[in-house]
């Protein structure tokens, strides 16, 4: 009996992270380690213009001066990362594709396993996908249709060549290369990512979506995303992430910059399901990400939604700089940590313009031995007359060996501003579980139902097709969290 149970548990462990497979594909890799040659290698691989290489080197040289400035203020514990022990470039050997038909069938197979609708005929109607596999963008679907409307949706490496003016003007304008340790590193070694430009007055009629996957062993993934919504435009963008199951930790240090001009709106949703490590805390992705939006224009709006279920460590604060008068920023977050996962995540809302509004809804769920911290800053500048913020942080605990923490910072330099902060902490009780089970639900169904109820408000902000996926993911990531 005991043996049967153990086997069942092992099978469950294996099945739990269903994205944990490795695709057997030949890769083109940079030599291990990080130095100026690595950066030149990456730049050469991408056939970059000099200005891009120069900007990388500038960032790298700055990064060298930051050796002692790796952030330590977050409530996260991990051994010091050896940045020389990683590969900074890995590309499936086969580049430059004219059409989807040329994509390596093995890659397509991987995406199929991941449930990514890469092939047009298999696609969910209205979703354009840019798939990033390790370091390069493999295929961008729906490109033509988007082009006709004037939308640019391409790998950023391509945008560097085709739209240098836009890239030069906006890249690094929201997250400068000096911003923080990880952002600086990213500016030096970023390999690919998505570039989006929505022309004036256009409501982009389809969701744009990127799928990131780390496949190679020991590679870091440093993608860079830049989205510009020109005046009066609208775009909804979704990013999903997975990685294979590996014993060693892998680094992911992305930078995302959003720019919304007058009356423009950007909705950016993330479903992050990087490998979280095993039940004993071995392996998993270190997710150190800088995401920031500039609401530059009047009446501009940015809405971040994130569902963070994966990664061994999450360090992430998608933020909004509310420069334009009447601009608004919203942050909706679900962060789930189970077993030995750690998350320190939240947002920054920087109110600069008049009548700027922000709303923060954070739902942290912690189980096993995990630690989950909400860290948020609401800053209201002296000129932000009439600024408003509403913050709600709810924590849900499962079991008694996990932790939840809320660290809100509020700085107001304008007497007309109003901020509101609410926080709750609750626990899934034995009584609730028994009640659900008495109605025939398994313990796991019960946990999933209760947790999904707890974060409904956030999940509802996801595009429909993905909300359903996210609901399932919430259940899966908490399997085995009780009893």
């Amino acid at each position: 009996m005991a043996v049967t149970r153990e086997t069942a548990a092992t099978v469950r462990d294996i099945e739990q992270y269903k994205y944990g497979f490795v695709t057997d594909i030949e890769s083109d890799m940079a030599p291990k380690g990080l130095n100026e040659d690595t950066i030149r290698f990456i730049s050469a691989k991408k056939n970059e213009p000099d200005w891009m290489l120069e900007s990388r080197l500038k960032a790298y040289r700055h990064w060298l001066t930051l050796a002692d400035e790796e952030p330590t203020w977050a409530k996260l514990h991990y051994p010091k990362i050896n940045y020389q022990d990683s590969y900074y470039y890995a590309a499936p050997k086969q580049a430059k594709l004219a059409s989807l038909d040329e994509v390596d069938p093995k890659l397509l197979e991987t995406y199929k396993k991941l449930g990514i609708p890469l092939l047009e005929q298999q696609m969910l109607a209205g979703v354009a996908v840019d798939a990033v596999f390790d370091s390069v963008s493999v295929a961008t679907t729906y490109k033509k249709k988007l082009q006709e409307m004037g939308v640019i949706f391409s790998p950023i490496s391509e945008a560097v060549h085709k739209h240098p003016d836009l890239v030069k003007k906006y890249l690094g304008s929201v997250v400068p290369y000096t911003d923080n340790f990880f952002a600086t590193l990213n500016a030096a070694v970023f390999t690919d990512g998505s570039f989006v430009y929505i022309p004036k007055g256009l409501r982009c009629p389809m969701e744009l979506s990127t799928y990131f996957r780390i496949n190679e062993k020991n590679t870091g993934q440093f993608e860079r995303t830049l989205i510009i919504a020109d005046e009066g435009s609208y775009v909804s963008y979704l990013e999903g992430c997975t990685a294979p199951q590996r014993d060693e930790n892998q680094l992911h240090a992305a930078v995302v910059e959003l720019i919304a001009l007058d009356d423009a709106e950007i909705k950016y949703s993330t479903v992050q399901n990087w490998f979280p490590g095993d039940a004993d805390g071995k392996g998993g992705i270190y997710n150190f990400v800088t995401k920031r939006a500039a609401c530059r224009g009047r009446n501009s709006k940015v809405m971040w939604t994130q569902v963070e279920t994966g990664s061994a460590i999450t360090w992430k604060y998608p933020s909004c700089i509310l420069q334009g008068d009447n601009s608004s920023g919203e942050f909706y977050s679900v962060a789930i940590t189970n077993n030995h996962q750690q998350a320190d995540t939240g947002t920054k809302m920087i109110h600069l313009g008049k009548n700027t509004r922000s709303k923060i809804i954070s739902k942290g769920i912690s189980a096993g031995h995990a630690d989950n911290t909400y860290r948020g800053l609401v800053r209201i500048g002296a000129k932000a007359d009439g600024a408003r913020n509403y913050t709600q942080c709810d924590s849900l605990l499962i079991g008694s060996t996990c932790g939840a923490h809320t660290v809100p910072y509020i700085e107001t330099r304008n007497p007309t501003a109003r901020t509101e902060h609410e926080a709750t902490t609750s626990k899934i009780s034995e009584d609730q579980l028994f009640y659900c089970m008495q109605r025939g639900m398994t313990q796991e169904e019960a946990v999933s139902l209760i947790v999904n109820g707890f974060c409904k408000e956030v999940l509802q902000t996801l595009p429909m097709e993905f909300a359903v996926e996210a609901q399932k993911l919430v259940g899966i990531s908490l399997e085995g969290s009780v009893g």
Partner: protein
Amino acid sequence: MALLEIKNLHVSVGDREILKGINLSLNGGEVHAVMGPNGTGKSTLSNVIAGRAGYDVTQGEVLLDGKDVFAMAADERARAGIFLAFQYPVEIPGVSTSSFLKTAINAKRRAAGQKEIDAMEFLKLVKAKTKALGMADDMIKRPLNVGFSGGEKKRAEVLQMTLLEPRVAILDETDSGLDIDALKVVSDGVNALRREDRAFLVITHYQRLLDYIVPDHVHVLVNGRIAASGGKELALELEAEGYAKYQGAAA
């Protein structure tokens, strides 16, 4: 074979023995009422049958269709047809009553190898049943039991029972907290479910409920033992005379 058979059931919490040898046999089609003073073990009996943790069964067994109930987890018992209408229903914040009901219905359907209920069928079904129980339409949109009045909670329990169509339904003081009209509506709901292949164990303090739900047997539970069993008239006698006579005898 009885539908539900309770044999010589002894249950302790910590060092304290609460049930001291219960024997009860419920056949399909029957309604059994259990009455008894506060703290004599009525809820304990219901909880143990339903599989709540925290009780030690030191002796005896409970069989559903001849199968050992204690070998099953709480959710398996539920899917096998044991339903408990709780004396104190639990609040589940954030989970709408309708999604709770749907999840429960589908859990049962999956176990029976049936396909999940479709959204339209579900809405129609729930609408009809809530109406029959005199519940407001928007009730199912609210988080389960959160902010429900005492009577609303009890109706919601009966709604769940109606939708889940159990084989053995245990109603733990479902009548307390109900106003006179609600008592009638809820009783009608229970009576509508009476069937040859279904049994009820109705726990109550008030004989009035038994005017509506007429029991086949009435049992008096005192100090963890069945002190007397009889027909409906036993409830009338208890109402008139109280438990004094049994408390002496059982001690």
